[in-house]
């Protein structure tokens, strides 16, 4: 039985049965076993019900990612504009043409209609903006580089956009400890360049580096290509300066590697997607720039062999391994078709990008060559090439980093960022292909296989509600069955806020709601994002 069809017929009935029971009743919480591996029809119905704003419009069981109706925030008046213009002369943007690009996300899938874009330069200005907006009950959408993929970085309605684009100063850098402090609007690539001149690197790297802001990276707990080696931002961020919803400045910008004095508040803000506070400055621990970087691009004939290559890699390359990424043959053909990139090796079902980074070129090359000899002679790998020099390394990396770009040329992309047990990763891609059949134009898989993180992308020439209904909730149920995460690193934003229950138990979500209510009682910070609609 196709569960979507079943649910749509019994939906209305269940609606009527549960509509009168208050959501916070313990009766429902105990009935609902969201966290079990087997979802029953009752569970599913409850999850679907939670996905609906019970006033009607907006998110529905068929489309939990759509926006809910506008909450009763104030609307911007001439007096408000006068205040902003006095506070930020020349940096209060109201021109609709200039606002357009900040109202639309990078994927061009969600669009808001904000009428005001503010560009503060200092923490003090951010504080005054939020204090004012809190008093006036004006909603605010913090925005960094606007490269987010879940619709979390653009307004849904007329929220005021608070941009960090002019907060791009590096504050300090200590080249003994490697600790960098900077404002939240620094572009990641600029920070990388700054550090490289001083023989250090940023602990994270992602395809969006030319545009994303470090504040945004921290707010989404961005993962990226180097997580395998340097860990997540939760470990490398040492301190934050945050402005709270009522304008209070929380200065926890410590530059200490170790500090166990009280609760670690910064962890609340990391990954909170701008809903608990606006990050205005970051202090981050940076690793030394490796003296020797090598990249190998390999081809494997099966996913099983790819996994065995990974095990061999871990064993033989050990501490010099800094990235292990994969892409499938469908990704390669899109790169060739739309971006005219050439496949450096023979066609294979799977491709791996391996990066090593170390302090001694001879030592690293020896290890790498031994590893490559081993995987070639044992036929785990069918073909491959190596790069030791900067332009070639960049060329090989672009085969992985530009897949997202290539997909945008195929029409509308449905993106899923899933964490799974590593051996199950490609099963999801294959099951999805079988499940969708002809409905989808492309079903591709790529990502940080070393971290157990799959980027599953499905394209169709244009937005297709029937396709969406076939994909969701199938993909989330599949993920939930294997106790995976429905959003490994992209966050929940607007699009995935209502799916949180597939990966977190209701008690946890309820506690998140309490924390939100405590830090932002009026709910002005990035409303309609991250937390599910029924939390209100």
């Amino acid at each position, binding site marked *: 039985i196709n569960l979507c069809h079943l649910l749509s017929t019994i939906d209305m009935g269940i609606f009527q049965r549960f509509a009168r029971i208050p959501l916070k009743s313990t009766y429902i919480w105990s009935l609902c076993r969201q966290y079990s591996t087997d979802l029953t029809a009752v569970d599913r119905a409850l999850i679907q019900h939670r996905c609906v704003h019970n006033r009607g419009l907006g998110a529905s069981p068929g489309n939990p990612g759509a926006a809910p109706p506008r909450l009763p925030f104030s609307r911007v008046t001439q007096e408000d504009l006068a205040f902003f213009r006095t506070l930020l002369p*020349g940096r209060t943007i109201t021109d609709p043409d200039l606002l357009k690009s900040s109202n639309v996300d990078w994927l061009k899938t969600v669009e808001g209609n904000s009428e005001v874009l503010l560009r503060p330069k200092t923490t003090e200005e951010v504080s005054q903006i939020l204090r004012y907006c809190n008093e006036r009950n004006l909603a605010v959408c913090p925005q960094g580089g606007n490269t987010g993929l879940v619709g979390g970085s653009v307004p849904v309605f007329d929220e005021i956009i608070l941009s960090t684009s002019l907060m791009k100063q590096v504050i300090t850098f200590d080249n003994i400890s490697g600790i960098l402090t900077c404002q939240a609007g620094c572009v990641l690539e600029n920070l990388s360049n700054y550090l490289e001149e001083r023989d250090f690197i940023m602990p994270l790297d992602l395809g969006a580096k030319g545009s994303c802001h470090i504040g945004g990276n921290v707010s989404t707990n961005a993962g990226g290509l180097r997580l395998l080696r340097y860990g997540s931002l939760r470990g490398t961020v040492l301190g934050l300066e945050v402005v709270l919803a009522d304008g209070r400045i929380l200065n926890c910008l410590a530059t200490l590697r170790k500090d166990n004095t009280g609760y670690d508040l910064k962890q609340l803000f990391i990954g909170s997607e701008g809903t608990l506070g606006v990050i205005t400055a970051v202090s981050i621990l940076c690793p030394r720039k490796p003296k020797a970087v090598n990249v190998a691009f390999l081809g494997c004939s099966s996913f099983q062999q790819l996994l065995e290559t990974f095990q061999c890699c871990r064993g033989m390359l050990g501490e010099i391994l800094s990235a292990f990424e994969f892409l499938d043959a469908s990704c390669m053909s899109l790169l060739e078709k739309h971006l005219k990139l050439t496949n450096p090796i023979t066609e294979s079902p799977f491709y791996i990008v391996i990066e090593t980074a170390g302090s001694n070129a001879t030592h690293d090359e020896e290890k790498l060559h031994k590893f490559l000899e081993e995987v*070639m002679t044992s036929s785990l790998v069918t073909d491959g090439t190596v790069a030791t020099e900067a332009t070639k390394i960049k060329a090989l990396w672009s085969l992985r980093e530009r897949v997202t770009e290539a997909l945008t040329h195929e029409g509308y992309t449905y993106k899923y960022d899933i964490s799974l047990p590593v051996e199950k990763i490609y099963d999801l891609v294959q099951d999805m292909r079988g499940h969708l059949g002809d409905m989808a134009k492309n079903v591709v898989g790529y990502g940080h296989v070393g971290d157990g993180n799959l980027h599953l992308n499905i394209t169709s020439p244009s937005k297709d509600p029937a396709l969406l209904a076939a994909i969701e909730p199938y993909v989330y149920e599949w993920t939930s069955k294997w106790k995976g995460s429905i959003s490994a690193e992209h966050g929940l934003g607007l699009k995935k806020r209502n799916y949180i229950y597939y990966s977190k138990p209701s008690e946890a979500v309820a506690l998140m709601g309490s924390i939100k209510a405590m830090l932002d009682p009026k709910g002005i910070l990035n409303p309609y994002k991250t937390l599910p609609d029924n939390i209100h």
Partner: protein
Amino acid sequence: CFAPFLCLRPPQIRVKPDRTGVVTDGVKHSMNPFCEIAVEEAVKLKEKKLVKEVVAVSCGPQQVQETIRTALAMGADRGIHVEVSGKDYETLGPLQVSKIFAALAKKEQADLIILGKQAIDDDCNQTGQMTAALLDWPQGTFASEVTLEADKLKVVREIDGGLETIKIKLPAVVTADLRLNTPRYATLPNIMKAKKKKIVNVKPADLGVDVSSRLEVLKVDEPPQRQSGVKVETVHDLVEKLKEAGRI
């Protein structure tokens, strides 16, 4: 053949404190991009069965062997490493290199010498032309297309005015320009095979070449620092500033 292996421009090139040159210590060295194109063209000719053997040559210190191995992995048959190191390497220029290539060409009885049009560290664009002159061979420089027609070579050259097509007799010297081809990646199976190919070591003296330089570098300076620009708020301010600067 291809030009001496040399250093790839890193993001920050620094002038040595004594201003006699640039810092090369710790800088990643690799094959000159135009020479890669030359190797690719040579390998292509061999794959078309138009040439019998491709010999890769490079002049420089020990590290040069790595570059020769890359050429072998791309498809060259054997390598010759002309060992020049230390002070001699620092002063090695196009004239000495072309003398070395001319001597080797005679020794090996080569029919065709292909090299990159210029090295991207010194941008001299002299080695190919000097080699042809020393051997009294015809030259097809800035080649964007090379076709073998019986015992002659048809070369399409990139020149300022457009494209010039010439026919030259073999033996000849050809220098490769950007659009000649796209060099292949050296793939692992070929990298493994290349380990078994031979690289022979020779010294310039063995070829009867004196590598001492007749040039003396007086000084090397960084380009003048670019002054930061000024942002103005209105068109009126812009006009005022341009007047101030005496530009209008």
